[in-house]
């Protein structure tokens, strides 16, 4: 336990490397895992679907967080990576390759190549120029996807059958819930471990000052590219998941607003924090449903007129408020609350305890 006023000391390398380091955290994590495991018995299909959507968004947000939050490379093309993954899967399914054992590696490969293609200009472009470059990439990918959709014979999209491995078919709300939550947990562990490894430290150094990072021996080009490739591979895989989960892929699902939503997730959650990405993903995913419920509760008759504008308005307003008043995001609020309880009756951390 973190003792009040004392330092936090570890006595072995194992304790220093542990992901979950205190008894309270282990207990909290176990309780969370139990709740997530038992949720299908307790909650309705609608709640399970909401959690699945949040878990799916968390995978994408964690991937964007590595690129924007850790490595400091602004990307407006996240929806483009998602679309590339979904449409790679759709293209393979169209040609009769339906096994996820083939489509997922192929999607990862396409995502990696695309990430490299966008990453190489990032070695020469910074800030606004890089953001515009990724925005252009988003439109090019969407054009390619739209062209493919149009070629497929005037369809509105592609139908994707449920993924099947051997005799196992992934189908139904409960099965998808378990798979998506497990994958989100895996992505979270990967992101946390990446962040505290050599690569994560290199990315943060590049984010803070690339010249200084280069001068302490970090290969800036290599680590910038690896951030892009990691982010785009994970996002493309999330796109493939999206295709399989929805069972339907169409260009309209990957508009510019999706990219803005992902950026909102990591900003509202807290830039550069894996926990923040998960919290932000849950927040942005659940917000429209919360507004639905709120508007329906206040005035059931007028609900249908106000819900749509209220969603857009609340989304923009909240994002502006977070940027103005809580730049550290939800994770900043969480840390403040936790510290208040941990330190009470004192207000500040002792200097030496980190």
């Amino acid at each position, binding site marked *: 336990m973190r003792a009040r006023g004392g330092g936090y000391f570890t006595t072995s390398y194992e304790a220093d490397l542990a992901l979950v380091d205190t008894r309270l955290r282990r207990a909290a994590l176990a309780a969370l895992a139990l709740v997530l495991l038992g949720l299908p018995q307790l909650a309705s299909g609608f709640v399970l679907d909401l959690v699945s959507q949040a878990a799916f968004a968390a995978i994408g947000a964690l991937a964007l967080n590595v690129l924007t939050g850790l490595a400091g490379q602004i990307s407006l093309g996240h929806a483009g990576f998602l679309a590339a993954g979904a449409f790679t899967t759709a293209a393979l399914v169209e040609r009769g390759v339906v096994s996820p054992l083939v489509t997922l590696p192929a999607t990862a490969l396409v995502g990696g190549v695309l990430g490299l293609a966008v990453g190489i200009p990032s070695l020469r*472009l*910074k800030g606004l*120029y890089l953001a*515009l470059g990724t925005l252009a*990439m988003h439109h090019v990918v969407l054009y390619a996807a*739209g*062209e493919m959709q149009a070629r497929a014979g005037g369809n509105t999209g592609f139908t994707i059958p449920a993924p099947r491995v051997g005799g196992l078919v992934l189908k139904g709300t409960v099965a998808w819930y378990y798979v998506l939550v497990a994958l989100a947990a895996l992505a979270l562990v990967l992101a946390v471990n990446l962040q505290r490894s050599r690569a994560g430290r290199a990315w943060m150094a590049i984010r803070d000052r690339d010249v200084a990072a280069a001068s302490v021996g970090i290969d800036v080009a290599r680590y910038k590219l690896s951030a892009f490739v990691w982010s785009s591979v994970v996002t493309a895989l999330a796109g493939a998941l999206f295709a399989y989960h929805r069972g339907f892929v169409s260009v309209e699902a990957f508009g510019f607003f999706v990219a803005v939503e992902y950026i909102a997730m990591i900003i509202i959650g807290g830039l550069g924090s894996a926990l923040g990405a998960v919290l932000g993903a849950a927040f942005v995913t659940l917000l429209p449903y919360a507004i639905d419920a709120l508007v329906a509760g206040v005035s059931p008759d007028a609900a249908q007129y106000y819900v749509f504008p209220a969603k857009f308005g609340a989304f923009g307003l909240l994002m502006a408020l977070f940027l103005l008043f809580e730049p550290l995001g939800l994770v900043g609020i969480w840390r403040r609350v936790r510290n208040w309880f941990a330190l009470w009756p004192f207000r500040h951390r002792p200097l030496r305890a980190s």
Partner: protein
Amino acid sequence: MRISTTNSNGVGIGSAGERALLASQRGINVHGVFALSWALAAFAGGLAGMIYASNVRLEPSLGILGLRAFAVALVGGLDSLGGVIPAALLVAAVEVASVRYGNPLLSDVSPFLCLLVMLLIRPWGLFGTKEELERV
């Protein structure tokens, strides 16, 4: 619009944009400059929206058109006001030509293809200042 690099207002705006702290220490009202430039941008954007909406069906998703403004501004050069008009003509010509001789789906993407080409060969734009670009 009387804002240019030859006018003291224009120099003030440029310096506030480049290094706000230094500009404020030389007596430039940085907050005023930012407020004014937001107001001018919103005014010009609103005007463009009015004109555009009188020609097509008005709907909330009209705003997506604004993304193309990035392409035009960058092709012209981000620090060049005079470069905007030739750049706008060029980008629009490319767009119309791509729809006329190519594929109607290209209309959404051709401004961004112009932007990508510009970023690759001349990131400071047609009329921008070469030195002012921040590159790695």
